[in-house]
């Protein structure tokens, strides 16, 4: 017998192929935490933005894209922004 092999990951047609960081940026923008249109300087610090998101959702306030925060961002939710930006 051969050892079971794990199939490689597949990009399924119709699904976005995003990294966690890209997903997080998209999340922060979509729900109003981050407004890139008002940011002329591309060098922005996300710490306060992430902290605000963590505060709003009652997560540990680390200011980092840690596992808990990424996981929360992947939870199903309402599309209405948390911050009217």
């Amino acid at each position: 017998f051969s050892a079971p092999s794990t199939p490689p990951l597949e990009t399924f047609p119709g699904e976005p192929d995003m990294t966690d960081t890209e997903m997080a940026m998209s999340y922060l923008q979509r729900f109003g935490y981050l407004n890139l249109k008002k940011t002329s300087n591309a060098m922005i610090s996300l710490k306060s933005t992430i902290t605000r998101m963590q505060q709003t959702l009652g997560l540990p306030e680390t200011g980092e894209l840690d596992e808990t925060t990424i996981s929360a961002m992947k939870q199903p939710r309402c599309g209405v922004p948390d911050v009217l930006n």
Partner: protein
Amino acid sequence: YKTFDDEKWSHTDLTYSIVSYTPDLDPLVVDDAFARAFKVWSDVTPLTFTKINNGEADIMVQFGREWHGDPYPFDGMDGLLAHAYPPGENLYGKLHGDAHFDDDEFWTLGKGPAVKTRFGNADGAFCHFPFTFNGKTYKTCTADGREDGRIWCSTTADYDNDKTFGFCPHELLYTIGGNSDSSPCVFPFVFDGKNYDQCTSEGRQDGYRWCATTRNFDVDKKYGFCPSPVNAVVSGNADGELCSFPFTFLGERYDACTTAGRPDERSWCATTSNFDKDKKWGFCPNAGYSLFLVAAHEFGHSLGLDHSSLKDALMYPQYRYSENFKLSGDDIAGIQHLYGSKPGPTSSPTSTTTAAVSTTVPSTTTIDPVADICKVNIFDAVASIKKTFHFFKNGYVWKFTSAKKSIMGPIPIAKLWPKAPSKIDAAFEDINRQKVYIFSGRSYWVFSGKSLEPGYPKDISKLGIDTSIERVFGAVMKGQRKVLLFGGQKIWRFDLMAQKVDRISRISQIFRHVPINADSVFMHKTSIYFLQEKYFWKMNRNYQVIFVGYIKRTLLNC
């Protein structure tokens, strides 16, 4: 809770219309879920909701996928479930109040496929999965035992004993929406000169499966949408189709749904025999999302509620299934802030709900208007204790965390400090010595935790405050050992270590551009707050006014 700047409907007799339905549920189940979701709010307010079938309603409800007619597209399965617009005039055209549901989700009542039967002898009851028939167990609808190929299910666990059954959703039974008044599909039908012998999404960009309800769509233009078969895949690129077992994926054969190839480990299947060649796939059905719960949340937005930061609140932004749903005190306080409470006898369903809420969560807001912090006009006192705002009124205190924007209360003051007076004029926390000072009239109390220090209450003359001062209305810590006590138009600087006043000043000498007759003065973090009527002034440590705002709207997010 939060509102959208208190935007609300100007009338209480609201109408709603269901513009489109999901293929996941029988339209009657959708109607019922929405009606129950509206009832969540009408049970605790004077609002009424009437469903209309034609014309523009206050709240237009629809299902859609991706780009669905407004500037906020949905995102496929999971992620965004739904969104809704607050009340208002001329908001994005006629969108105000409208609620949209992402039809790339699998809509259920929260616990797996909700399959309502038609015909048979079960009076439209839901299928019971699994059920036994002829000694065999079935987890889905079946055509077994019938020669006409119609699929059916038992509505109890044991068909052999109970003999109750009904027919499962199928395009040969009925269609949804369209212009054919629920008539079944006619196969084959002609569309664009081509014959179709099953439902198709050809001719549409939204992926909805449809059929003609006469033999020739090109001539008659009669059509309807096909109900999703039980066990149909969800989303992917073959929504509504069935898994094709076995199928080939990366050269391997699969006889059941699999998580292979997916980093998120969600279960999927191919809808043709060869994924590698056809690339047609979808997710296997799971518990799905409760249309009732999501709708109740969205209708909260439709009525003017923004997201709550309390995880137990219906208006918390993330989805969480709860079997025995009860509206939280936070949601009730929010909606009643906008529309008031339901009039009438207390034996109404409203009081049942709210009584349950106040029984299970005694320390949080009830529907009593005086218990709603947003209805308090002038607070007895405000203080910052353990970095949390404390708002005092009539023997109660609300705790408000500005960081989390969450309100706890009303809590009886006696619960926090058993021997404290019910009417509090000022309070402050001596962080270094972990004591709380409370002022009421010409007396003051000192607590360590919940315990009153021996010898208290004492008269404020012991602090060196004039006998002409009727009350202390503010207290601000200054450094490690001194506190500024506000009374009349003066400030007494009190040395906590030496237990004596070492300087007396006039308020106007030290603090400029703030009212000298404030209702309350306190310090929170590094800022000093002056409250007067409905306004507050915020000062930095250099005594410069850095912000002026509304107490309720800005500070409390009412």
